Structures are given as structure tokens and as C-alpha cells.
């Protein structure tokens, strides 16, 4: 993989933490190659459920807590952040063409050569699917010779059966520190998950347990004129 060949990578996901679980290692590799990366983050994850045990949040304080976590993660990953101000769980109800138009403007202004987003229909959460669909639509609206490459994240239980294996797989063995730090910046989301990973792992070391689970980031490079969604 030649990371330097890109001019600007734009990550389009709906939630604070999607970037860290889905693409942190890949983002790190682009940044190490000197390529700017911008995250268009749809929401603040306002409807998240983890309030902590003991509590560190409630329904009303969670958005500001997750906003700070998101900013911290973007600092770890050294990428630009644009918060789009949609509301958690409502993305599929927004007019898709308006969202796509907005995304297209970002892609053109930033000179995006690569878009990383969710694969509509294979990304489990309705916000993921809707955000990915609007991102696909945005690329489709561009002149064919201006279009960025599209890498899509899929993780539904049927994704390998229906799509085959990801055709872009990034090994994070040499950039896993940043991936784990970015995940941990999302304390409200990661804490329980990481301790569970550790409990289920043969390793008694958090880094090793996380590496087992998150060593590879897979994407589907899609031909936007061919793909069904």
C-alpha cells in the first residue's frame, strides 16, 4: 500500500468512536506518510447507553463528554475534525440528497482523493448505513474524473457471505499504539469493551488482547458506478 499517493483522506462516519474502532490505524499510516486526514463526524453519540459503573454521565451530560473524547481521539490521530451536528439515531430520517450535497462540498473543498465510510446495508447501525449511503451518493454526484476512491467498512454478521472478504486489509502491527490510544480516548465507549476483551482473551495483557481483536482494518474498495446499496 502506497499511502503517500493520496492528497487528502476524508473519513465519514456518524459517531464519536467509529473512527477509532474502524480506521484509527489506517488514519495513522496516512498521517505518518504526510497525508492530511479530515473526519466528518455526523453526531455526538447523544443516545449512547453507557453511563459508567460507577456513573460518569447521564443522558444530558453524555454529548459533551463524548465531544471531548472525540476531540482527544482526533488529537491522538492528528487529524482534522468537522462535527456535522446531526443527532444520534436520526440520520436515516434526514434527506439523503441534502446530506450528500453537503458531503460533496467538503470532498471538493478538501480535495479528497480517498473517502473512508460505512458500507450501506452492511454496517449494522441505522446511522452507519445512512451515513455511508449519503457518502456513496456524494461521490456519485461528482464528475467521474474528480471522484475520490471509496473504502467502505462492513461488519454485519452476513458481510463476508454477501460481499466476500475485504479487498483492502491494513495490518496495524506497526501502528497499534495509536489505535489503542484512540480507542481509549473514548472512555465512555471503550472501558467496558476493553475489560471484556481482556477477560475473554488468553492473554492477561490489554495491548495483546486488543491486538488480537483489532490488528487488521478491512475495507471494501467499491466502484461507485457498480455498487448496489
Amino acid at each position, binding site marked *: 500500500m502506497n499511502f503517500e499517493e493520496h492528497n487528502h483522506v476524508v473519513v465519514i462516519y456518524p459517531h464519536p468512536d467509529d473512527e477509532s474502532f474502524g480506521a484509527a490505524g489506517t488514519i495513522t499510516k496516512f498521517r505518518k506518510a504526510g497525508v492530511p486526514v479530515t473526519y466528518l463526524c455526523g453526531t*455526538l453519540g*447523544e*443516545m449512547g*447507553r*453507557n*453511563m*459508567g*459503573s*460507577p*456513573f*460518569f454521565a*447521564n*443522558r*444530558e451530560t453524555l*454529548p459533551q463528554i463524548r465531544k471531548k473524547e472525540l476531540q482527544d481521539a482526533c488529537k491522538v490521530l492528528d487529524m482534522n475534525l468537522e462535527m456535522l451536528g446531526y*443527532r444520534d*439515531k436520526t440520520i436515516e430520517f434526514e434527506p439523503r440528497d441534502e446530506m450528500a450535497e453537503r458531503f460533496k462540498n467538503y470532498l471538493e473543498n478538501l480535495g479528497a482523493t480517498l473517502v473512508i465510510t460505512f458500507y450501506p446495508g452492511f454496517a*449494522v*447501525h*441505522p446511522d452507519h448505513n445512512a451515513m455511508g449511503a449519503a457518502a456513496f451518493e456524494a461521490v456519485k454526484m461528482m464528475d467521474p474524473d474528480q471522484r475520490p476512491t471509496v473504502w467502505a467498512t462492513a461488519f*454485519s*454478521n452476513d458481510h463476508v457471505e454477501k460481499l466476500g472478504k475485504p479487498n483492502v486489509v491494513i495490518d496495524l502491527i506497526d501502528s497499534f499504539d495509536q489505535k489503542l490510544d484512540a480507542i481509549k480516548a473514548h472512555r465512555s465507549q471503550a472501558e*467496558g469493551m476493553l475489560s471484556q476483551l481482556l477477560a475473554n482473551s488468553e492473554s492477561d495483557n490489554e495491548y495483546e488482547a486488543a491486538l488480537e481483536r483489532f490488528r487488521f482494518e478491512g475495507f471494501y474498495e467499491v466502484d461507485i458506478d457498480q455498487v448496489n446499496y
Partner: protein
Amino acid sequence: MMEAIKLEIVQDYINQFANQPVYVHLETTNGAYASHFNANAYNVGAYIRNARLTYSQGKIVEHEGSYRVGLKHEIGWIYAEGLTDFEFNENNQLLIAGHDKEGRLMVALQISPEPFSY
């Protein structure tokens, strides 16, 4: 911070909000990933953000360690069950919620004199 419900205290707050226009947030969820992790599970969830109403009476009732709240308003009711924790915050909002052992929110009923933000 949220803390375990104390019935008399919460009842007092509920009484304070009666007979004046208030904004209600009502929510229940079992998470966006319930059926992803368990094929037999089924995602359910609903929320109403900022229903504006005036209730004439409200009551909290204990049942085997968790609580139910009913608010009677001009043309109907607001109801929640499975409530475990509460907080009265600096914006004069009464937040009541039910959490599981891991601290995940399962149900919420919140009352505010001004609209909830976000």
C-alpha cells in the same frame, strides 16, 4: 451524578413540577446492537424529546427494588418502569433513569422547566 432513587426526594421534585408547563424526555432502549450480538434478540427502542405538557398529578411507586412513575396530564398519561437512579441537576431538570449492572441506560424519564438541549 445519578444516584439510587430515594422515593420521598423524587416524589417532592415530581410535585414541584406539577401544574405548570414542563418538557419531558421519555426513552427506552435495549441498544442498537442487540440483534447483532444475539440472533434471538430484537431491537426495541423509542424516545420522545421535549414533549411539552402540564401534569396535574404525578407519583413514584417502588416495586422490588426498582420504580415506576406515572404522570397524569390534560389528555393522557406519561408512564415509565424499571427506574433505578435519579439526579436533580444544575439546570433544574429532574433526570430519572433505569440502568443495568454495567451502567447501561435502559429507560429514562426526565422533566425540565425549559426544553432539553441537543
